[in-house]
């Protein structure tokens, strides 16, 4: 379990420090430091075992189905990184205590920092590639939070977003690469993957996965051309930069190269991509760093350049180069972290980071200056410092490769050039800041920082010196053990030493130092030259690219989603046309095997009327009233057709529904203009005509195909069981209330909800009330015809009686709750028409909401009733009773259900009517009667 505790402790630290808001700064720092220090001790404790060649592993099952488990391992490479992450992390936390101003939230910084630390620890200790990616993305998130720590600054927000986008994009590529890699090997376990070099490199997917993984590594490690996010990430507080951009975040990409070196390296593709990218980045970073006036900008580009150097070393494909790369990882972390911290002090004490203003700091802070100069000298590769050693090794390795064929000599030359620039910018850092005359209007009077703020730098600089002077003494163990892990068990003979005798690498170093000093002294010309080049502002280009992308997508989206219902409907109809029409082309014969019946005069006449009605509706659609009447012709013809083909129930339903809807629509028409303007161009009409005709042809053909085919269905069962099982001779009604009563229950709900919805919609709808008809004629004075009023009133009881009769006989003869409900509703509608809604409102004080509710409740509870007889929901019951004087009578639970249907239908219909009617009722009479 010990291994798991390392990231866990750091996560715990993150949580603890987030809760220290109420404590003093010292207390907060102390508390925050405890967890990482314990973790560091555990790591040191485990070191001897790892040095001895042991690999510690731990696995907890999490998502076995996906091959994702919580799996940690600690080998030499992981140990090296864990040690760096924890040690530098601790120093940064300590340093940040003095760096942050009183206004900045310390718990926030600490908890983010340690969240980030957790993520980094997770990456380096993962023994499962998916888990590695998990932590990889976690670094992206936490670094986003860290960079945007000063969220109110625009550059912090932009820098954070840029870093997240680039590294997040790389993360996605990495995920794809890792998944492919896992797919090749058949496992996501790192142990297994690292042991499958042959399988991986023989796979057809090797190139793809290599490129994807490298994309992930290069974006994270800010390799050219993905480097541009790093300088903008400098908007973060300096402790964050010291941590993220020296030892951790950017090193994650390098770690990835090292981790997968055993299986991915060794091919030409690896060499070309990795070494060329590394070399380009090395040169580019070193060159640009020289021109940065911002201290942190200089360090940022220097970091880019050094990362390029390490990448190049990995790309060289030799064992010794790999050892050198690992060595430089250590060295870069130490001197770069201390340099960032020193910069932080200077920034802190002077209030600026502009090297054109900060001069002559030696006089104000000699102690800090000494530390910074030692670190900078290490960065430049000056002897006696650790930077020198790895640089020598680097030079030696560039000489020992033959990778570019006859052009291989170019690599050492370019390496020397880059080293020269590195010396030059280091020289600039030292000379400009600490000497070079006097400071120019600084915002603050500089002086030495608080004593303890320097401690982390002192430790790191001491390390630079110790490693530089006694390399074997300090780093041999860890270097051997890390190289052991990267090279897959084999470590070449190597000797890190200060003095190798007079040889070519030493000469290259000498050239580099001399060249660097020359460049620095003659920098005026270079600056002039640089100024004459067109400036490339990465942030601006990035912003521009994003702006263009967003504008473009907005344009496209607006063009597609233009809000036109006509367009959406056209698409819908086209899709329907395609779906329904395409199979017809594949079909051989439309007409089925059934014998065709003669058409007959009545049928033909009915069909013609139906068609005329439909076509007229379309033709007069702009004159709404006429159109409505034509629709009613269609409806009537449909109910006639139902009667003709022996479906009296359907005919009755259709007829009553028709009446109700037409009346309601007429009411609605009152609020609409009588005519709608001509809106479609002739072309559009032609297009729509085409689509609708095509649809008509397709649907018609399908119907024809179906009705001419012999039909076998479950309906025979219904006919056979209607009387015996459902207790009714009217099959339609038995289907409605018994066989498929559940459908009916749903449908009456729909009706009820529709009524509620219409009430809801109209409840707060301010509508324009026309004072006259479309031709300007005032409404009739006599609003309610007396004749109609008196007749309708006397008809009401009769109508109710009829509906009651229809309701009762429904189970055996055409009728039923639905139809009866509609008839009742029509009777009431007639009253509305005859007397107006005000008249009704006074007399019919019913709460429709309750009516609908009780109707639904009756239906539902009738269904539930069967539970008490241990039968499923809606199981019906019926029996025949012999009652004196009346004779045999059937009682059925279905009747009760039908009652629910009846009440709901009446309630819903009247509620809709009342809501529509109320719109007119509430307006003062004068307005209506103008």
């Amino acid at each position: 379990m010990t291994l798991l505790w390392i990231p866990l402790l750091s996560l715990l630290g993150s949580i603890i420090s987030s809760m220290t808001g109420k404590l003093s700064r010292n207390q907060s720092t102390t508390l925050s430091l405890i967890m990482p220090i314990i973790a560091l001790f555990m790591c040191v404790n485990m070191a001897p075992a790892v040095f001895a060649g042991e690999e510690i592993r731990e696995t907890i099952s999490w998502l076995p189905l996906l091959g994702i488990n919580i799996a940690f391992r600690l080998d030499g490479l992981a140990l090296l990184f864990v040690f760096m992450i924890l040690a530098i992390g601790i120093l940064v936390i300590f340093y940040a205590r003095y760096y942050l101003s009183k206004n900045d939230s310390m718990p926030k910084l600490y908890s983010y920092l340690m969240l980030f630390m957790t993520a980094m620890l997770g990456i380096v200790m993962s023994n499962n590639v998916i888990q590695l990616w998990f932590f990889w993305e976690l670094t992206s998130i936490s670094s986003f939070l860290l960079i945007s720590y000063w969220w109110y600054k625009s550059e912090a927000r932009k820098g954070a977003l840029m870093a997240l986008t680039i590294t997040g994009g790389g993360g996605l590529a990495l995920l794809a690469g890792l998944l492919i890699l896992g797919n090749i090997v058949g496992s996501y376990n790192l142990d297994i993957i690292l042991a499958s070099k042959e399988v991986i490199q023989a796979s057809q997917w090797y190139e793809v996965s290599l490129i994807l993984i490298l994309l992930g590594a290069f974006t994270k490690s800010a390799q050219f051309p993905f480097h541009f996010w790093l300088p903008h990430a400098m908007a973060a507080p300096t402790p964050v930069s010291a941590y993220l951009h020296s030892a951790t975040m950017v090193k994650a990409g390098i770690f990835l190269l090292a981790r997968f070196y055993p299986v991915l390296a060794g091919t030409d593709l690896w060499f070309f991509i990795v070494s060329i990218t590394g070399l380009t980045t090395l040169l580019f970073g070193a060159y640009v760093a020289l021109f940065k006036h911002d201290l942190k900008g200089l360090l940022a580009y220097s970091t880019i350049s050094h990362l390029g150097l390490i990448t190049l070393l990995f790309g060289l494909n030799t064992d010794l180069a790999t050892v050198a790369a690992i060595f430089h990882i250590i060295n870069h972390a130490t001197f770069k972290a201390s340099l960032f911290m020193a910069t932080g002090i200077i920034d802190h004490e002077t209030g600026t980071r502009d090297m054109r203003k900060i001069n002559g700091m030696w006089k104000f802070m000699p102690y800090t200056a000494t530390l910074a100069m030692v670190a900078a000298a290490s960065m430049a590769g000056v002897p006696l410092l650790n930077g020198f050693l790895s640089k020598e090794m680097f030079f030696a390795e560039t000489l020992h490769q033959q990778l570019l064929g006859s052009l291989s000599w170019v690599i050492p030359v370019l390496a020397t050039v880059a080293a020269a620039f590195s010396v030059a910018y280091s020289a600039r850092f030292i000379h400009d800041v600490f000497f070079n005359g006097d400071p120019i209007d600084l915002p603050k009077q500089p002086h030495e920082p608080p004593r303890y703020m320097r401690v982390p730098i002192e430790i790191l600089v001491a390390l630079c010196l110790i490693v530089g002077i006694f390399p074997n003494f300090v780093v041999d163990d860890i270097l051997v053990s890390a190289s052991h892990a990267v090279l897959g068990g084999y470590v070449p003979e190597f000797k890190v030493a200060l003095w190798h005798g007079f040889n070519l690498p030493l000469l290259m170093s000498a050239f580099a130092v001399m060249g660097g000093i020359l460049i620095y002294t003659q920098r005026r010309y270079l600056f002039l030259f640089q100024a004459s080049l067109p400036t490339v502002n990465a942030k601006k280009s990035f912003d521009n690219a994003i702006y263009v992308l967003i504008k473009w997508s907005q344009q496209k989206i607006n063009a597609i989603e233009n809000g036109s219902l006509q367009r959406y409907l056209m698409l819908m109809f086209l899709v329907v046309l395609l779906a329904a029409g395409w199979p017809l082309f594949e079909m051989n014969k439309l007409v089925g095997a059934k014998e065709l019946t003669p058409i007959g005069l009545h049928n033909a006449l009915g069909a013609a009327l139906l068609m005329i009605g439909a076509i007229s509706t379309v033709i007069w659609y702009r004159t709404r009233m006429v159109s409505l009447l034509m629709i009613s012709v269609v409806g009537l013809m449909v109910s006639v057709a139902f009667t003709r083909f022996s479906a009296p129930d359907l005919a009755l339903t259709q007829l009553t529904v028709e009446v109700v809807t037409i009346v309601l629509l007429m009411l609605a028409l009152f609020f609409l203009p009588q005519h709608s303007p001509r809106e479609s161009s002739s072309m559009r009409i032609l297009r729509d005509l085409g689509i609708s005709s095509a649809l008509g042809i397709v649907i018609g053909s399908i119907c024809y195909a179906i009705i001419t085919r012999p039909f076998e269905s479950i309906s025979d069962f219904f006919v056979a069981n209607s009387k015996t099982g459902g207790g009714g001779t009217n099959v339609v009604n038995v289907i409605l209330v018994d066989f498929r009563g559940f459908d009916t229950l749903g449908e009456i709900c729909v009706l009820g909800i529709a009524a509620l919805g219409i009430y809801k919609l109209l409840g707060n709808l301010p509508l324009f009330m026309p004072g006259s008809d479309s031709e300007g004629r005032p409404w009739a004075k006599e609003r309610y015809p007396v004749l109609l009023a008196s007749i309708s009133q006397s008809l009401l009881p009769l109508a109710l009686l009829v509906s009651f009769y229809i309701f009762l006989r429904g189970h055996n003869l055409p009728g039923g709750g639905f139809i009866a409900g509609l008839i009742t509703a029509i009777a009431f509608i007639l009253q509305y028409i005859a007397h107006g809604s005000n008249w009704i409102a006074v007399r019919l004080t019913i709460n429709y909401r309750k009516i609908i509710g009780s109707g639904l409740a009756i239906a539902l509870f009738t269904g539930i009733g069967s539970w008490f007889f241990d039968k499923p929901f809606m199981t019906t019951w019926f029996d025949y009773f012999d009652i004196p004087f009346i004779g045999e009578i059937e009682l059925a639970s279905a009747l009760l259900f039908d009652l629910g249907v009846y009440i709901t239908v009446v309630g819903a219909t009247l509620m809709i009517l009342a809501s529509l009617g109320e719109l007119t009722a509430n307006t003062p009479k004068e307005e209506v009667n103008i």
Partner: protein
Amino acid sequence: MIQHLTSLPVLLPMLTGIILLMPPCGKNKAIRRIASVTLGFITFFVSLALLFSVQTDGMQVYAIGNWSAPFGIVLVADPLSTLLVCLSALLGAVCVLYATAGDDEKGSFFHPLVHFLIFGVNGAFLTGDAFNLFVFFEVLLISSYALLMHGGDKKNTRAALQYVIMNLVGSAVFLIALGILYGVLGTLNMADMAQKVALLQGDDVYLAKIGGLLLIVVFALKGALLPLHLWLPNTYATAMPIVAALFAIMTKVGVYSMMRVYTFIFGEEAGQLTHMAQNWLWWLAVATIAMGALGVLASQDLRKLVANLVIVSVGTLVALVTVQTVEASSVAIYYLVHSTLVTAALFILADLIGHQRGKVADRITAGTPVSQPMLLGICFLIAAVAVIGMPPLSGFIAKIWLLKATWETEYGVIFWTLYLLASLAVLFAVAKAGSTLFWQHKATTNKHKISEHKLAEKAQQEGVHPAQLAALLILIAGAPLMSVFAGPLSEYAVGAATDLHNFNNNINIILLGGK
């Protein structure tokens, strides 16, 4: 009672709807709220009970009216349908809980309508009958029409009208499709249909194909698949956010129905019609993802952005459904739950953020700072990380799993490329939205600390209501929980998908009563 458990997740919401219309809930606001929330959560717990009972006893078939399939209507509770029933019940309960903070009084009948909607959704999930599915579609659609009008203004009503008309056309097509299928197959029970489809011969095959394709068109409209997705962004973005959050389940009904129809009726055993139009659907799904990503980039307010995220999720789901392997269906199930919870949470967050930012509301531009930056910020961060698919939350598991499930397919490379690019677009857009909404204030520099006192005052006035907070936290909790319990959940999803693909077993249990 226990033997009727299968019917309860359907009947209980309906009963709740009725109770809320009747006295004393009809008039009294307080009683109505308490009843609505309590009954909502009871429905959820009953659904959970059903889920566990299905887990222990296997698939359950409930013959309504004691008429067994294929003649009567049966409810089929299998792991997939019960999972979704739980999800919709939870969403419904959370939605009414949230609305008790005041949104429910911005129009009439909010509470009963939500429960009626859940009635329709749960019915659609559980029914084993194609026509009954149509009925439940009608129930959920009519409720959704009414809910869209809730607290509406002109703009909102306009978008709602488009939604209504599109769906009316959809209903008509649904009916035509059912008519055709009934005409060819002579049955409406889905299991029976599946069995009959396999036996079709000659030209009947094409008629059944037409019917099936039209059904898919309807579900594609409901699920918002390209090119039938156009109604969604505006409708969801202009609806009251809590309604939009509830609607997170609605597109999933379309996808679910597609799963049923596509995997079961026209699945492996459908003879000539096996996986018809797979190519088409696949490309449309992929195009939907692309379009959604484009929409996400183009979105200028948070609600629109989330609406477009819904489209991305639909494209992803449909792509997975068309792959037609058990693994892909398993991911689809996991992803469906994840995306529903996250998008619902984001809609709610959009509401809260918009409310606290005053005039600029949820527009992604500099404005007044929110009054509770800590609370809303953390919630937004969690939801954002989940929806982007970054670790450690549910989205990342879904992402890895779905990439893994699609790799072996014919179109793996295209899907990966497109999906990952879309992920990047979502990552960028969501991060940018968050950073702008929370951090970019009208007067940027130095203003951040002056108003601390004022901020506290503002928070007091317009802070998150406890009911809203509870609702938000329930939804947000889904993301970490689905990650922590990814092991058992993924096993559940695989079990559900295996059942879905187990043709013979389904036929056997539904039609023959397991004999």
